[in-house]
């Protein structure tokens, strides 16, 4: 909503209040000022009167004008098409500096002397109104040649743009904003000084017959007028340009100006369009679905009240007889109806859906006032109306409740004053209660808390003293908080291992999901309105979007890219779960003197050890079902405490190539498999552990995980743990490999003799011989 200071001043006295203060006040009462700017016309630009205008002898498009600028008559060459004798125009005299910093000098144009410049509105810093030079008229004040344009306050207006909240339809007009300012500044709202005793003697019934069928929940008043002559004065053109309201014809401009002033929804019908050549136009207001009302003629719909109007019935430029309709429909009726019936709407619907001004008479008066002042029209006597009476809402406000909600006491007299100025009708005040009707133009006020909000905003929230709350202490360590803290620990561990946290959109490209063999969300549960075509799905895992970040960094010559993310992923049924991804692309460590600037590339072993530093120890099993993102022979399931908790793999070389990535490894972990562990300490064995290595030769096709599970449970309890420490292959071994395992033997009650240890190791070898045909190397 755009307002101007001068336009507001027609409704509220702003004497002695700066525009800055107006903005501050608007902000403090809940009308947020988006921007405010002032039009400043430089000095030495004056009113000029074109005394004569002749063609330039040497240039088709130029005119030579004699212009009276008060103190003298100047010859000025002008290139505008609309310059003509008798016009009053802005003249930048020699020495003036235009808003674009151009300095006006004496000039010779194609051999003809020119002393100054006749200006367009744009050259003065005004918004675009029409092509050519600005034609001045007395709507902005008396025109005296030589008078500085900067003295015309309607030209040098201040323009304030307000960001209205959705409930404040009542402020979609100059009058509505002025009404708020009057309350905020404690001034009186002006009334329209209009004597409507100028109607012609012919009654409206001679040309218009209005009937209705059913009981639409709307209000309509119809008038009619004859146009003798009509022009749009500068003041109106200027202000409509300030508030960015375009118009197609003079009647359209007057309607727009009256609507923006009053907030009443006004529509014009061309009489010829709805009368079909007969002397009388017949309109029927008909109830349609959901309480709406349609205005019909010849069973054709001319408009739906508050919603739209057919192009066919709008007056043409040369239409001489106009039927005027002022209407109101409650937003509580029109908004759900439009949504339900999926109706087309026009720009005025914005007003009716947010609450237009219900005082229809006021809007009509504003329009007729303007027509009388600036145009030559004849208005038919009387009107035709259909009014849906609205029961006022009565509220009972207890000052005690006001105090408890705000947190401090408000004097009842102060509350009464505020509500009165806001348009409430106060019925009575007694025993700390105020009984009042809400204002008809505030459809958004329906209950006590709404009313308290009105009191608060006028008092000013900044005037409420803040106070700490007294509340009952309780254990509020919710599951989510415990979870958050645990995940934060994991995130910090990842950070300390050099990983950078990232955040990606949960959206992803369904084409990519399918390309990598994942199942997208079932179409029946898919997104209706993705924001872009390549964000039409929900990610099935975190790696799929991480690829883009890896690629972006690689393209920026990053040679070591360690990233991680914890976020939501979705299966084909759109079930949500939390995952963690750790991804590492490129060089294992930063290049430095330590590695002579040539760090090793990341490999499976070092990446796995980074992952375990983040999520704790785990076992790796060959991945049963590697996805297309994974290297089929370097991919594993992460088994944590017996449960498959995720996967770890080298990025498939084909994918790496597609995304221009060096060797890349990633691990995806199901967050629900990570739980803070409760640890019970075991007794520390008093004896020194003994290390024994065993090198065997077995078939290369034997995965270590099988050897591991064979040994687990089959070896004596004194063998506390074992793990592989070397794997070796050469030609002499053929299809076999040499595998070295290290065993840690912890004697329990007594120290072990060498022979006892040897016997343990022999037993182990025997198991491996039997199961895997292993032999000692």
């Amino acid at each position, binding site marked *: 909503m755009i307002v101007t200071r001068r336009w507001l001043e027609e409704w509220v006295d702003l004497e002695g209040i700066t525009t800055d203060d107006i903005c501050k006040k608007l902000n403090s009462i809940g009308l947020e000022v988006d921007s405010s700017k002032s039009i400043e016309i430089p000095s030495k630009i004056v009113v000029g009167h074109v005394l004569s205008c002749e063609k330039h002898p040497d240039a088709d498009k130029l005119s030579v004008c004699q212009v009276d600028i008060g103190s003298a008559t100047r010859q000025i060459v002008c290139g505008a098409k609309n310059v003509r004798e008798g016009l009053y125009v802005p003249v930048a005299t020699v020495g003036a500096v235009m808003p674009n910093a151009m300095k006006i000098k004496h000039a010779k144009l194609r051999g003809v002397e020119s002393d100054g410049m006749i200006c367009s509105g744009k050259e003065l810093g005004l918004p675009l109104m029409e092509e050519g030079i600005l034609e001045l008229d007395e709507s902005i004040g008396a025109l005296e040649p030589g008078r500085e344009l900067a003295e015309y306050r309607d030209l040098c207006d201040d323009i304030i743009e307000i960001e209205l909240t959705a409930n404040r339809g009542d402020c979609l007009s100059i009058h509505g904003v002025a009404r708020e300012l009057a309350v905020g500044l404690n001034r009186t709202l002006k009334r329209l000084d209009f004597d409507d005793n100028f109607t012609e003697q012919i009654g409206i019934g001679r040309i218009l017959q209005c009937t209705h069928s059913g009981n639409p929940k709307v209000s309509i008043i119809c008038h009619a007028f004859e146009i003798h002559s009509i022009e749009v004065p500068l003041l109106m053109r200027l202000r409509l340009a300030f508030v960015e309201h375009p118009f197609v014809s003079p009647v359209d401009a007057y309607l727009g100006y009256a609507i923006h002033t009053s907030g009443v929804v006004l529509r014009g019908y061309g009489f010829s369009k709805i009368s079909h050549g007969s002397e009388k136009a017949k309109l029927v207001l008909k109830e349609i679905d959901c309480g709406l009302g349609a205005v019909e003629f010849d069973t054709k719909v001319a408009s739906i009240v508050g919603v739209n109007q057919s192009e066919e019935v709008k007056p043409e430029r040369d239409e001489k007889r106009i039927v005027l309709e002022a209407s109101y429909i409650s937003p509580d009726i029109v*908004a759900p109806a439009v949504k339900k019936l999926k109706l087309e709407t026009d720009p005025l619907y914005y007003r009716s859906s947010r609450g237009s001004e219900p005082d229809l008479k006021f809007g009509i008066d504003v329009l007729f006032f303007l027509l009388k002042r600036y145009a030559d029209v004849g208005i038919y006597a009387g009107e035709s109306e259909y009014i849906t009476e609205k029961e006022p809402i009565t509220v009972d406000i207890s000052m005690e409740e006001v105090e408890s909600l705000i947190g401090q006491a408000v004097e009842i007299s102060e509350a009464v004053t505020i509500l009165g100025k806001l348009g409430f009708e106060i019925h009575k005040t007694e025993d700390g209660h105020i009984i009042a009707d809400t204002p008809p133009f505030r459809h958004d006020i329906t209950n006590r808390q709404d009313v308290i909000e009105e009191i608060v905003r006028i008092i000013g929230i*900044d005037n*409420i003293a803040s106070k700490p709350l007294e*509340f009952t*202490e309780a254990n509020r360590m919710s599951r989510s908080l415990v979870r958050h803290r645990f995940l934060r620990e994991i995130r910090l561990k990842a950070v300390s291992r050099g990983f950078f946290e990232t955040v990606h*959109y949960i959206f992803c490209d369904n084409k990519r999901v399918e390309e990598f063999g994942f199942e997208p969300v079932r179409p*029946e549960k898919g*997104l209706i309105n993705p924001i872009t075509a390549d964000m039409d799905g929900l990610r099935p895992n975190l790696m799929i979007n991480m690829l883009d970040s890896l690629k972006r*960094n690689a393209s920026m010559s990053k040679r070591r890219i360690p990233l991680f993310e914890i976020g939501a992923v979705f299966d084909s049924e759109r079930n949500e779960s939390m995952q963690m991804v750790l991804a590492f692309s490129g060089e294992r460590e930063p290049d430095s003197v330590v590695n002579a600037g040539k760090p090793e590339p990341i490999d499976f072993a070092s990446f796995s050890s980074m992952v375990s530093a983040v999520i704790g120890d785990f076992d790796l099993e060959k991945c049963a079902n590697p996805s297309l993102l994974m290297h089929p022979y370097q991919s594993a399931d992460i088994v944590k405490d017996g449960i498959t908790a995720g996967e770890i793999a080298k990025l498939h070389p084909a994918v790496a190539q597609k995304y221009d990535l060096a060797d890349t490894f990633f691990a995806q972990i199901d967050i629900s498999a990570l739980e803070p562990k409760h640890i019970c300490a075991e007794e520390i064995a008093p004896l020194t552990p003994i290390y024994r290595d065993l090198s065997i030769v077995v078939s290369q096709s034997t995965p270590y995980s099988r050897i591991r599970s064979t040994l687990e449970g089959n070896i004596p309890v004194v063998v506390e743990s074992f793990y592989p420490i070397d794997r070796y292959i050469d030609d002499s071994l053929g299809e076999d490999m040499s595998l070295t395992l290290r065993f840690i033997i912890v004697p329990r009650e007594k120290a072990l003799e060498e022979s006892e240890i040897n016997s343990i190791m022999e037993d182990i070898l025997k198991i491996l011989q039997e199961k895997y045909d292993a032999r000692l190397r």
Partner: protein
Amino acid sequence: MQNNWIDRIENSLNLDELEAVRVSIFGKKGELAKAFAQLKDASAEEKPKIAKELNALKQTLTKTYDRKRAELEEQRLQERLKREAIDVSLYSPRAGGGALHPVMHTMDRIIEYFTDLNFAVETGPLVEDEFHNFEALNLPDYHPARDMQDTFYFKDGKLLRTHTSPVQIRTMMKQKPPIRMISPGAVFRRDFDLTHTPQFHQVEGLMVDEKGKVSFANLKWILEDFLHTMFGGVDVRFRPSFFPFTEPSAEVDISCIFCEGKGCRVCSHTGWLEVLGCGMVDPNVFKAVGYEDVSGYAFGLGVERFAMLIHRIPDLRSLFEGDLRLLEQFR
């Protein structure tokens, strides 16, 4: 002879030489042993005198030797230390550790503030239904406020939550008052330009207790304290505003941290930055969850906005691009 021995000890250049001297003097067959051996040839009256002299000499020599040895050991240690010298400046670590994402880190800080003030943390699903996301929050389907929230819908009528407020509804429907909670998390709106991403993060708070217990003054107190904790000594301003789920509602501004309120590009020359929305919970919301005779406040904020202001991050979209040139700055 005595001086000769002392000189030999003193003149040893290193521990090896000293050891050779020690053997030659103190050894079993050393010169000192020899001198003691000659004692048996001395006369009876001279014997005690020579013995005394020899013992005194031995003591002097031992002292000299011990001192010299300590000196040479120290010398050897110093030499070793020198040998091990490195140019430490070559090893200034670079690109060592990683970093938390600035938005996630900011969210952590916000959560920490409120949990320290005894708020619970609650979470909920990203895929929501119209009841929890809109209707229970006093937003019927024709409500003009829904214009502000362009929503991602699914074909089965579900939607991606447009704010974390549905978590408040879910919590109120599960628990009895008093409730004191925040709900942090990702939210989604169909908006994608310089200053909007289709996904961003919010933290919303809710306090509900018996009727008359929770007031706007309490809401002001906690938000002022919170903003001072996050932004330091800024001015805080409350502007009346409108949200369907709170009443009275307010938007909260802080004085611009870039120009200190003088007016700059970031604050659109107003001197203020909008950072929070808040209000007293609308009675219709309490009605929707079946609460009676309660009072409460609620507030909500965008985490990206906080992170961008606190860390002066110029580009919102860069936060979702995993760009190390940005992330490495937070190491």
